[in-house]
């Protein structure tokens, strides 16, 4: 049983896009019908299943890469020259400074950190990796958004300042 790298790339790309779309659909359906509606729950279940499948495919792809790395190590032990899949690591500048005033929890920090980590580990960053990292940040944002909205709807008394703002904007006398 063997999955070619091209198949892994296709599956990961397809599932990443599907996960993003399914999450957006779940948000859209939930905003119209509420989080407890059966359709919202079906949308969340579909998004969750896509997420699980994507995780398993990525895990299988990582195992495959580790197997390839193991082969390289074996070659080294046997003093056989095996071409490395990545170019030699180049010196990486760490001169990135986030814009002043950017919240420490802003997604840009995590995104740039991931890019640097990838660059250090493999000596470069591909467009596919950058897209994947950005997608992860987007998905994380949407998940946090869903949780925050659910919390606000379930426990509005915990967010008095938002409730006050809402009252002021909706009141004709406000």
């Amino acid at each position: 049983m063997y999955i070619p790298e091209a198949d892994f790339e296709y599956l990961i790309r397809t599932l990443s896009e599907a996960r993003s779309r399914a999450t957006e659909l779940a948000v859209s359906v939930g905003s119209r019908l509420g989080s407890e509606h059966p359709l919202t729950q079906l949308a969340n279940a579909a998004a969750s299943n896509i997420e699980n499948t994507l995780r398993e495919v990525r895990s299988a792809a990582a195992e495959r890469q580790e197997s390839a790395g193991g082969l390289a190590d074996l070659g080294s032990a046997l003093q056989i020259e095996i071409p490395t899949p990545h170019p030699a690591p180049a010196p990486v500048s760490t001169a990135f400074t986030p814009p002043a005033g950017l919240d420490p929890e802003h997604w840009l920090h995590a995104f740039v950190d991931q890019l640097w980590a990838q660059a250090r580990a493999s000596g470069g960053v591909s467009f596919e990796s950058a897209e994947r990292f950005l997608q992860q940040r987007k998905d994380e944002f949407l998940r946090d958004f869903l949780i925050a909205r659910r919390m606000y709807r379930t426990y509005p008394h915990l967010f008095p300042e938002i409730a006050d703002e809402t009252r002021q904007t909706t009141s004709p006398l406000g």
Partner: protein
Amino acid sequence: MTFDTRGFSQLTRQATDLMSETADVPTVLRSRLGAQHQLTRAAQEMVASIEIFVRELRSFDASGEPVVTDYQDL
């Protein structure tokens, strides 16, 4: 309880696109790993859940259409 059913046709189309774009994922995995592999079964479960969601969404969308059609006919 009333629901905002506007825009559900668009959501149904998007969900249908999602279903068609992911339909061949189990096929690819089955051809490489076999029908009994965990990944294949996870993908089949994923596709089944998307299909159920799309079916229910279509049903919900269709159930709202006659009202809109009636108003348009007037």
